[in-house]
């Protein structure tokens, strides 16, 4: 029968809007306003999952985010979401979900055999059995994960978009129940800017399930509606339903996730699926409510056994009968409300089993008056039923509550509503660093000392009655607004009137005794999601674990996606009981974000694909694209890698580009080199202090190569700096290092040398830099400039001139990274493309050839020029590179003292060498390790590694640079490079300069 368990009237569902949905391949109907869980229950579906370890049949336990069992795989690839809580999932037309964790189906599950061999699967089983040998762990892990299954990640990329947004407010209120709403009212009335986040789709909190509650003599939901109208009219108030505050970080920074479109049948393409709110709040009010705790009794996990409060929610909010014949099992007065609601809805109540010696409290009295069968000082000691609870055994409890007296008596039922008391939702408070304190009376941890500007109100603060919630909410809202600097006098109206109906008194039996001790016969589940039983905790304690954090990790209790929301206090209580220590001494485990699981999508937001990271393009980028260049990422820059012509291979293209530079003329876009403009009377002094060589004597118009070290003596950057004027220099840095070098210089200037008068300006993007290199470079440049003298005498190697090139104001630097006569022409970036195109046109007669980073690397490697970050890795000194010539012995500089450390003088330091493979056609992979002699298998003592490796067209063979222990003394000796696949390359150590060692070409 469709929706056979739906009540004819009542509830907050819209019976005029039926919705079709599918679960495990079968079609069902629910109503707008349902969750998947309530719609399933309306159709009599209780068995929704199999448990993690034993594959036991599991049902819906809760009606909210605390749900341990009813996790479903939602939707189909690519829009598939694992671990979705059916209890929070709003029903939409066409929704399709499946049970996860079972194969082939939830009704018949192969893994359920695990249940029959459960003795073999105690706590720590995986650790103990599969931890050795380590090499097999990957395999075990795969099988275990597959069998255990925690849903399935979608196989395709997520087609939805996700957004992130920032918000600032005076008062952020988490929780839209009565306390949160009252806080919002009070704060908003002072004029404070208020954000109110509620994880549910509707505001009202527990009031949504309690039609009997009244405020000011009217139904409580009327007050909620009026409150929302008042808040809605206030432009300073933002109410965010379907928004979970999942993390509370430092300085009142909270992360919220808003589910924007999941609940919409038609999803507008313009809207993101979810939105991440990053909120910085002056004050925070936590009105997060409380979560009902389970009772730990024998086989307390069968479908049909749920929390009493959840039962009330299904009855009252969703108009669903969660069963036909119920047993209510409680340690407190509050659950009698559930019994009364059941009776009112026409569900027969077979028994109210109360662990307390006498049914005390206002609701107990009402239930007695209503004639409900109450069994005081009784316990459920066993349950039966394969896929749904069918019977429970009830027995009288001994006076200490630690054993039962007499035999169990069977009671037929298809629903058991349990209540083990309520535990405040202190997760965010605890995440914020706030201290918790144990409250003996309420049997829970309460917020104690806040660590930040945090206020707590309502059930989260231990106020379980409505009147107290309203009162605390108003007070917290007002206090928070006042702390944020708002005038509160007269802002409040008369406080709304309501009745306090808490759940106390209670009797705290954390472990309900059964006929046999825990671990024999039935299973007392403490954590249903991770299948952790009392016996597991006892085992952990027997094996010597004492700290609750260790017990948690060893057993896995509280470590599921629900973080043990309905069972952690029980786990702590059981540990305390077993150890014979007071519960607060055992302490509480750490609460960590996220409060409930958050999609990866919302963390990624729009920062995917092109927006993952900024892409920097030079002024000439479009030309490179048109020329068919392939690009290489260098830092955030996109640099042309090589320019294949007519189907050329990379190898051919690079060889052609390299040869062009050596034989005629190459052209390179070097705009990405970092450029720092340095001005001031102490500019030269700054250079003296940060570079290893001396700068005082550099004349205006000349350039000098510099090596920059960290204070640890390791090479951090290199580049050429030109003296442009009396107190004016232009420093170039490695492309990827420009920001780091500027930061380095600024740090020293500001923190150690404030007396130096120097200004630093990053001008990397202000200039386009075009480098032309080769025997025809001077000829071409000469054709395009009238006012710059280019003769070797007028503009020698390592000098600089200013003038017009192709009519464009330019700085021309005669510097070379190729070993050829080369000019770097800097023009304002907006002229970059014009300059490039002019050079290309004018250079046609020289066969001018654009070359990319790969050819540049080959050219520089032929010359033995290092690249910082390739030949260096943060552990390489100038001496290791054989660059003693650039290290001043006279002056101090950053890093100098470190070069004198004893470690630096060791003869087995890795030193830069050239490497020539015996087979001239073999190109070693960069990063290859070098050994004296390759052994059959690792380990082999490693003596160095390859840092750069190329095929050199000019030498007609492969060349490589490497760092080798004591390498400078080993020229001519052989080393070996064992390569993947078993092949070993034999190579000879050589000097690092392979081409034109005298440098005649570049000076010519």
């Amino acid at each position: 029968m469709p929706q056979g368990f739906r009540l004819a009237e009542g509830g907050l569902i819209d019976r005029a809007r039926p919705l079709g949905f599918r679960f495990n391949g079968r079609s069902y109907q629910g109503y707008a306003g349902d969750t998947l869980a309530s719609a399933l229950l309306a159709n009599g579906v209780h068995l929704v999952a199999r448990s993690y370890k034993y594959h036991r049949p599991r049902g819906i336990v809760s009606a909210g985010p605390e749900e341990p069992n009813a996790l479903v795989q939602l939707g189909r690839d690519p829009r598939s979401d694992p671990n979705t809580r059916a209890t929070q999932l709003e029903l939409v037309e066409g929704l399709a979900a499946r049970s996860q964790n079972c194969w082939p189906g939830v009704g018949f599950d192969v893994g359920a055999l695990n249940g029959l061999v459960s003795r073999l699967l105690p706590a720590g089983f995986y650790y103990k059995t599969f931890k050795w040998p380590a090499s097999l762990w990957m395999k075990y892990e795969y099988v275990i994960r597959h069998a255990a299954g925690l849903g399935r990640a979608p196989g395709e990329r997520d087609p939805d978009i996700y957004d992130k947004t920032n918000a600032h407010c005076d008062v952020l209120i988490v929780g839209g129940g009565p306390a949160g709403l009252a806080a919002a009212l009070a704060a908003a009335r002072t004029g404070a800017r208020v954000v109110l986040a509620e994880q549910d789709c509707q505001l009202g909190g527990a009031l949504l399930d309690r039609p009997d509650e009244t405020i000011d003599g009217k139904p409580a939901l009327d007050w909620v509606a009026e409150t929302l109208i008042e808040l809605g009219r206030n432009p300073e108030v933002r109410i965010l339903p379907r928004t979970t505050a999942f993390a509370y970080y430092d300085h009142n920074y909270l992360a919220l996730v808003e589910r924007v479109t999941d609940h919409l049948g038609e999803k507008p393409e313009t809207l993101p699926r979810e939105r991440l709110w990053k909120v910085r709040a002056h004050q925070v009010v936590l009105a997060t409510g409380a979560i009902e705790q389970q009772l730990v009794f024998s086989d307390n996990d069968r479908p049909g056994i749920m929390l009493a409060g959840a039962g009330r929610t299904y009855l009252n909010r969703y108009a669903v009968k969660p069963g036909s014949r119920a047993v209510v099992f409680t340690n407190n007065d509050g659950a009698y409300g559930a019994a009364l609601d059941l009776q009112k809805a026409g569900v027969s109540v077979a028994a109210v089993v109360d662990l307390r010696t006498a049914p005390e409290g206002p609701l107990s009295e009402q239930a007695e008056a209503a004639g409900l069968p109450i069994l005081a000082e009784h316990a459920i000691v066993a349950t039966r039923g394969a896929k749904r609870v069918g019977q429970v055994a009830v027995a009288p409890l001994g006076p200490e509550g630690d054993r039962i007296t007499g035999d169990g008596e069977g009671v037929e039922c298809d629903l058991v509503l349990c209540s083990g008391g309520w535990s405040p939702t202190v997760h965010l408070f605890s995440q914020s660093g706030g201290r918790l304190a144990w409250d003996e009376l309420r049997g829970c941890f309460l917020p104690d000392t806040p660590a930040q500007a945090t206020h707590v109100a309502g059930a989260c603060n231990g106020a379980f009655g409505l009147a107290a919630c309203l009162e605390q909410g108003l007070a917290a809202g007002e206090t928070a607004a006042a702390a944020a600097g708002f005038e509160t006098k007269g802002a409040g109206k008369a406080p709304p009137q309501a009745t306090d109906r808490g759940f106390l008194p209670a009797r705290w039996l954390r472990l309900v005794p059964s006929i046999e001790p825990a671990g024999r016969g039935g299973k007392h589940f403490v954590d249903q999601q991770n299948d952790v039983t009392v016996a597991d905790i006892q085992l952990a304690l027997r094996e010597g674990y004492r700290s609750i954090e260790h017990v948690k990790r060893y057993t896995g209790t509280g470590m599921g996606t629900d973080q043990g929301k309905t069972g952690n206090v029980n786990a702590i209580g059981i540990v305390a009981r077993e150890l014979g220590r007071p519960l607060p001494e055992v302490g509480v485990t750490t609460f960590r974000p996220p409060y409930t699981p958050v999609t990866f999508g919302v963390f990624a937001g729009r920062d995917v694909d092109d927006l993952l990271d900024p892409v920097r393009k030079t002024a000439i980028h479009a030309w490179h694209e048109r020329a068919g260049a392939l690009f290489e990422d260098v830092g955030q820059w996109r640099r042309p890698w090589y320019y294949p012509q007519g189907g050329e291979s990379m190898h051919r293209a690079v060889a052609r580009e390299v040869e062009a530079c050596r034989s005629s003329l190459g052209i390179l876009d070097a705009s990405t080199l970092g450029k720092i403009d340095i001005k001031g009377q102490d500019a030269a002094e700054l250079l003296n202090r940060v570079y290893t060589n001396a700068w005082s004597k550099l004349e205006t118009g000349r350039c000098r190569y510099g090596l920059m070290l960290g204070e640890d003596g390791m090479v951090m950057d290199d580049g050429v700096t030109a003296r442009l004027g009396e107190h004016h220099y232009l420093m170039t840095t490695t492309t990827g290092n420009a920001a780091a070098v500027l930061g380095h210089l600024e740090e020293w200037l500001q923190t150690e040398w404030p007396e130096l008068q120097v200004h630093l300006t990053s001008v990397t993007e202000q200039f386009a830099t075009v480098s032309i290199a080769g025997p025809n470079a001077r000829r071409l440049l000469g054709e395009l400039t009238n006012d710059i003298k280019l003769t070797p005498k007028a503009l020698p190697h390592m000098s600089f001139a200013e003038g017009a090139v192709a009519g464009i104001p330019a700085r021309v630097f005669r510097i070379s990274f190729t070993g050829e006569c080369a000019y770097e022409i800097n023009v304002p970036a907006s002229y970059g493309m014009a300059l490039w195109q002019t050079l290309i046109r004018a250079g046609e007669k020289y066969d001018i050839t654009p070359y990319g980073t790969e050819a540049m690397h080959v050219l520089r490697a032929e010359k033995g020029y290092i690249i910082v970050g390739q030949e260096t890795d943060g552990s390489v000194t100038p001496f290791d590179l054989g660059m003693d010539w650039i290290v001043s012995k006279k002056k101090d500089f950053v890093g100098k003292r470190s070069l004198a450390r004893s470690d630096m003088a060791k003869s087995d330091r890795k030193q830069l060498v050239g490497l020539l493979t015996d087979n001239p056609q073999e190109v070693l992979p960069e990063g290859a390790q070098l050994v004296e002699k390759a052994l059959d298998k690792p380990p082999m003592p490693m003596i160095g590694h390859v840092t750069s490796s190329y095929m050199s067209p000019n030498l007609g063979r492969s060349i490589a640079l490497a760092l080798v222990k004591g390498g400078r003394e080993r020229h001519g000796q052989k080393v070996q490079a064992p390569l993947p696949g078993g092949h070993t390359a034999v190579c000879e150590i050589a000097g690092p300069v392979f081409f034109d060692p005298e440098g005649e070409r570049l000076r010519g």
Partner: protein
Amino acid sequence: MLLIPCPYCGPREETEFSYGGEAHIERPKQPEALGDEAWADYLFMTGNTKGVFLERWVHSHGCRRWFNAARDTLTNEVLAVYEMGGKPPKLEKRSYV
């Protein structure tokens, strides 16, 4: 994420800043005069205080200026900020066991 009061710009998100380690570690005037151990002490050794710690920050994605801050490393409260070269403010000692 911290909210750091840059002395020059006002309170800004931590992501705009870079951390510079312990404050008031002065570079030795004559590094050459130091033995390896003393040099290593300057170079590598910093405090690991539980409580009020004087440290350096730079507003990298803002004014790019360096400054000192006094931060409680346990609660992350930023108790004071002051300029480079400035004297640390007098703060109540916080001791944690």
